[in-house]
Structures are given as structure tokens and as C-alpha cells.
């Protein structure tokens, strides 16, 4: 168990974040807090993907060419670039989701004067 906790710390760490975000989304009554929970949920997945690409003893994936390419490039020297590319997409999706969610919250606040979910449901019933 200890060995698992020490060597694979990145996994149980992202699981804690995901569960915090998930709990926040499910339980919070205020829509803005639900949105914040959703953001935590999205960004913990980005943390998980980035931890995949890590390699011990490797540097950032910019290949030193300094002019001529003298020796063959060894893949072990550079970390895995693919998760970083995927996560650029996920970050942009997160930004876009937050943008649209804030626009929706403005409309809801404009129409119902509140962001509390139960008050909105009452206002809708009338």
C-alpha cells in the first residue's frame, strides 16, 4: 500500500480532485458554485493527462538542434509531447464551457433575480 501511495501519487491525487469537483457539482445549491465544481472536475482530468507524459530524467520536448543535428535524437531524453497537445484542447474546451456557462448564469440572474436552484425552480413552477 505504501509503495502504491509513494510511486503512484499522481493518480490518487487527481482522484481526490475529481471527487471534490464531482461532490461540489452535485451538492451545491448555488449555480455559480456548481460551475466552480465543474471547473475543478475538468481541470483534475487535465492533471491526470499531464502526469501520463512525465518521464524521469527527461527535459521539455524541444529538441536541441543548435544548427546541425549531430547525433540521433534519443526519445528517453524528452518527455512525451502527446498529452500536452491533448490537454491544450481540453483547456480550450474548459475555457469555452466556462464562457457559455457564465453567459447562461447572467441570463438566469436577469430573468429570475437569483442563482439559487430551489428559488429558480419555484419561480418556474408559478
Amino acid at each position, binding site marked *: 500500500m505504501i509503495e502504491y501511495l509513494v510511486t503512484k501519487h499522481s493518480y490518487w491525487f487527481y482522484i481526490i480532485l475529481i*471527487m471534490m469537483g464531482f461532490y461540489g457539482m452535485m451538492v451545491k445549491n448555488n449555480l455559480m458554485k456548481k460551475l466552480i465544481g465543474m471547473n475543478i472536475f475538468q481541470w483534475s482530468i487535465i492533471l491526470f493527462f499531464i502526469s*501520463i507524459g512525465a518521464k*524521469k530524467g527527461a527535459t521539455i520536448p524541444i529538441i536541441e538542434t543548435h544548427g546541425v543535428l549531430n547525433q540521433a535524437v534519443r526519445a528517453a531524453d524528452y518527455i512525451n509531447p502527446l498529452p500536452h*497537445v491533448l490537454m491544450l484542447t481540453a483547456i480550450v474546451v474548459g475555457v469555452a464551457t466556462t464562457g457559455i456557462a457564465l453567459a447562461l448564469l447572467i441570463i438566469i440572474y436577469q430573468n429570475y433575480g437569483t442563482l439559487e436552484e430551489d428559488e429558480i425552480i419555484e419561480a418556474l413552477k408559478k
Partner: protein
Amino acid sequence: MLALFITMIAGALLVYSAEEFPRWGDPQQPASIHVSQRYIEKTVEETGVPNAVTSVLADYRGYDTMFETSVIFSAGVAVMMLLRGMRHGKNPR
């Protein structure tokens, strides 16, 4: 309380299943061997770009980035549609 219980169960299941993942930073893990080796070794040779992330972003998987730009474009259009004309009473009910 029920939500806390559900979250705990889900977290425990995820932690239980995360045991089989490779160790953090292990250079021999499948993710670092299978596809990404070509990106690192051949990026300068095939695309002339030393930054492997930019070459994967714009060339090898350039299609993803095109849709990513379209995602942020659609978010801009959506916000513009939802919020424009809020003051003149034509806002969505």
C-alpha cells in the same frame, strides 16, 4: 449525505483500479513507447520544427487543433448570441 456516500464509493473504486497504472515518470510505460517516440525522434527531420509539442499540435494532429479553434469560435458566437440585445427585452426568457 447520499452525495457524499456516492462520491466516496466512486473515489474508492477509482483508487482501487488505479493500482495497475505504470509508475509515475516510468520511461518504459506504454504511453511513452508506443506512439510518442516517433514524434520526438522524427519531428525535426519531418517537419523542421524543434518544438515537438507545436509539431504534434499543428501537423501530426493538426485536425484536432482545427476543431479546437472551432470550439472557441463557437463559444464566442454562442455568448454573442445569448447576451446581445439583453437590454431591449428581447433576451431569452
